[in-house]
């Protein structure tokens, strides 16, 4: 006995209206064929989706904050205080935007090191690594540009240091510094420029590049670790099995972000004064610490050459090698075990963790 009529909640009339005009059967077939491997390490697959979710959260909270934030050196600081004290739940949305950005960059590093250590960058997925690297730089620039918009003492000093550091690069340094600052020093021009980056240029660029990144993932499917290369790995359909799991993970991440945002709302310091000395013990945001700690451990002069320049060159070399890992790791490109690059991967991770920790506690 069939106890129910066709449920009206399924919207059959709406679906028919659509189906009479658009034939999405091939798309649906494609979607149903998307499979995800199941194995002992498949939890790491969720890291990319978490970054995507947190970025979406940032877009939404950022759009809300942009209703009230005034990107002018005179009013920026005050507008944030207004948002945080006068508006309905203003403090919460600002806090959510702040912690969302911290967690997004944190999970981005998790995703980065997971793909590095699982060697997901190997052939045929090199473009994912390169686009991902550019997305990392974009995300860090998001963080830096957003941070300056506070226009308080810490942010001002931090951006002065960060753009000054960029200026230390050989040849292109001064040009980059002038481009970022909009002049010789960090001024109201810098604020306007960083605001343009933060709300217009970077978001459009990110949407485009992330779209590309995700489409390439669909084309290749998920990479499986080299250790499982010869094993027959079971697969499950993405729609809806993994999608529901993705959503559950995102809900947990949302809960985490909201809870931290509620219990630990960020404060705002005094308004920036370009002529004042920077505050005591000024430190950049945590994701810059490993770079600045590296700069700190180099002596002022090595063999008659400027220590800082040498440090910057070494850092640049390190970053370049990191970027070119798919090209350099020939063995994994052939599907072979590549223990050298496993060591290299762990070395980068260890360096990042140790330097960040030292930078944080000194």
């Amino acid at each position, binding site marked *: 006995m069939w106890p129910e009529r066709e449920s009206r909640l399924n919207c059959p009339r709406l679906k028919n209206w659509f189906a009479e005009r658009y034939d999405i059967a091939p798309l649906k077939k494609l979607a149903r064929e998307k499979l995800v491997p199941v194995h002992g390490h498949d939890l790491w697959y969720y890291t990319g989706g978490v970054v995507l979710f947190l970025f979406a959260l940032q877009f939404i909270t950022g759009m809300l904050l942009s209703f009230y934030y005034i990107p002018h050196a005179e009013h920026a600081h005050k507008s944030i205080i207004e948002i*945080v004290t006068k508006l309905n739940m203003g403090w919460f949305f600002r806090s959510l935007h702040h912690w969302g950005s911290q967690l997004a960059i944190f999970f981005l590093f998790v995703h980065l090191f997971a793909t590095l250590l699982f060697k997901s960058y190997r052939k045929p997925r090199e473009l994912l690594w390169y686009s991902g690297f550019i997305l990392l730089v974009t995300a860090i620039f998001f963080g830096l540009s957003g941070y300056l918009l506070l226009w308080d003492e810490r942010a001002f000093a931090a951006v002065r240091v960060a753009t000054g550091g960029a200026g230390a690069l050989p040849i292109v340094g001064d040009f980059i510094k002038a481009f970022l600052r909009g002049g010789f020093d960090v001024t109201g021009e810098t604020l306007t420029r960083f605001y343009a980056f933060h709300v217009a240029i970077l978001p459009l660029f990110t949407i485009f590049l992330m779209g590309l990144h995700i489409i390439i993932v669909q084309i290749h499917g998920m990479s499986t670790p080299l250790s499982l290369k010869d094993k027959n790995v079971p697969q499950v359909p993405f729609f809806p099995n993994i999608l529901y799991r993705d959503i559950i993970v995102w809900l947990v991440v949302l809960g985490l972000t909201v809870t931290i945002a509620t219990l630990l709302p960020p404060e705002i310091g005094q308004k920036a004064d370009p002529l004042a000395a920077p505050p005591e013990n000024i430190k950049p945001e945590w994701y810059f610490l490993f770079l600045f700690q590296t700069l700190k451990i180099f002596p002022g002069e090595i063999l008659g050459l400027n220590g800082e320049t040498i440090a910057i060159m070494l850092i640049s070399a390190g970053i370049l090698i990191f970027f070119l890992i798919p090209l350099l790791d020939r063995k994994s490109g052939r599907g072979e075990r590549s223990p050298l690059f496993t060591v290299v991967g762990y070395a980068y991770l260890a360096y990042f963790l140790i330097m960040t920790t030292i930078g944080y506690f000194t």
Partner: protein
Amino acid sequence: MTLTVCITTVIAFIVSPLWAQEAKKAIEVFPSTPYYQFIIFENLAIFWIAIIGLIVILRMKLREIEQRQKLGLDREENDAAPPN
């Protein structure tokens, strides 16, 4: 549930934290009075109930989907004729 959420969020919007008295003090954001703190924690609890409820229901959906897949039911047509 939505009604409770709406009412409590409306009440929560009268949050009025301290102003900085003079330049040196940092500006406090989290409200200090227990009345408002209670509202915020209450809302946080409701939020978590919503999230956990969603996760539970999604797990129910997942269990249903996996059972159907195991029985091979998802390859059946939806409009198939009933047996006998």
